[in-house]
């Protein structure tokens, strides 16, 4: 490989405490700019992979480097949308969106502009002063997403960010995501349960199997970016969706 990998898993094994093996021998390299989707049955270790990359949990054995460094050393350039909306209950929506930038030391005026842009993107303009407890489930998730989008991270980790959203908002955000990515060139790890979404967004799909969690198969998606409504309607797209679905089914029924 010519470009050095930005994320490199080598034989990573993960157990929580003295529990069972959750990830077993996970190996892959992610090149800068990759959009990698993780799909697989519930509990197979998708969130765990993202947590390892974010340095929230140590690998049990094997090695994991981010940009050649340990996850702990590297993560200043990372944004993560957790599977559950993780909002500070004492801050209103506006402040919750700003908090990631605040932690990065961005001054307040600059934060305000990014906040407005992000809230507009997730269609929550006008709800700045609501508190988390006053939001619907999907709204909370969108605030959580907006918070990550205020950063310009090198690596973006998205753990089912659209699971609680209706199809149209979902498609809107899919397209926005690809748009921003064109400009900011993140490396993205994306957990989803929608095969269609995975195929539409990513250039690589990891189909995972469970017990213990392994990368069962990698699928390359070669449609050129930018992808559009036309891509969605194309024959090869549909074929690939069906193929990946089949793969997934085969994994799950073993």
């Amino acid at each position, binding site marked *: 490989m010519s470009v050095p990998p930005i994320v490199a898993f080598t034989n990573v094994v993960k157990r929580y405490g003295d529990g069972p093996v959750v990830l077993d021998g996970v190996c892959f390299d992610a090149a800068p700019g990759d959009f990698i989707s993780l799909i697989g049955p519930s509990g197979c270790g998708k969130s765990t992979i993202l947590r390892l990359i*974010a340095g929230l949990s140590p690998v049990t054995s094997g090695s994991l480097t981010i940009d050649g460094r340990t996850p702990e050393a590297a993560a200043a350039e990372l944004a993560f949308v957790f599977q559950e909306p*993780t909002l*500070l209950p*004492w801050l209103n929506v506006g402040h919750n969106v700003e908090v*990631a930038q605040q*932690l990065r030391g961005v001054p307040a005026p600059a934060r305000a502009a990014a906040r407005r842009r992000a809230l507009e993107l997730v269609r929550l303009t006008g709800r700045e002063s609501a*508190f988390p407890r006053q939001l619907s489930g999907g709204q909370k998730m969108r605030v959580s997403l907006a918070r990550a989008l205020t950063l310009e991270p090198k690596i973006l980790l998205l753990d089912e960010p659209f699971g609680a959203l209706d199809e149209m908002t979902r498609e809107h955000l899919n397209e926005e995501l690809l748009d921003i990515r064109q400009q900011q060139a993140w490396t993205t790890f994306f957990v989803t349960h929608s095969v269609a979404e995975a195929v539409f967004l990513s250039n690589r799909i990891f189909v995972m199997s469970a017990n213990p969690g392994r990368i069962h198969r990698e699928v390359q998606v070669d449609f050129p970016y930018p992808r559009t409504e036309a891509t969605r309607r194309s024959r090869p797209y549909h074929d690939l969706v069906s193929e990946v679905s089949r793969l997934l089914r085969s994994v799950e029924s073993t």
Partner: protein
Amino acid sequence: MSRRLLNFLLPLGTGVLMVGIWYAIRHGLSEDMKFLLPTPDEIWAALAANSESLSRATLNTTKGAVLGFGFAVVISFGLALILSLSNLIRASLYPYLMILQMMPIIVIAPILVLWVGAGLNSVVIITFLICFFPLVVNTTQGLISTDRNLVELFRMYRANRWQETFLLRVPAALPYFFTGLRIAAVLAPIGALVGDYTAGSSAGDGGGLGFQAIIYSSQAKYPALFATAAVTCVLGFVFAGGVHILSWLSLSKWHDSYHRSDT
């Protein structure tokens, strides 16, 4: 509307009930025991009769209580921040904080008097010693009880210690902190009172409420003694009221303790 009315009536009702119970107990006391429990109006009269010395004493005790409470809040907050850093630090320091709290005043008072002199200094230190422990324990527990998901959010964004502490752990600990504050607010005036009668001084303007209480007690001036206690309670209510308002301002917008059900 009617609920708002109830909000006044019920507390008022229990108030009337308490006074009723008071009179009933007094009525039930044998004639030669009655002096032990003066009636509210006797206490009121004693309050009026001793208003001058009581108001001077109240001022002194208030000083001691405010300063002791203030130091307790500030120092216990700092200590809690340190204790919250790790289990190890807690295991290392906690026993000594416990000892500080468990040292009987009677052992401390003479040392204090020799060291910083009797009077305001000693009263403030004793008030501090009585108030600080509930604050430390509550605030520390609050700081270490922060939602793990939020802690991970902050870790993930590589928040520094300062940010993790002041943007996350401290606001998350507020419900605990205010619980400690509610306890300390009530302990502050009695702390100052105890300080006053173990290490106060009559210098200058004649001591605080603790001094007065000893004198009234030894002279069997029970109405005046109860008046002293009443003033102490009022002081405590003022402290607790302040804490109540602060707590409301900080928590009412978001904490579940202020939201039992939605409408």
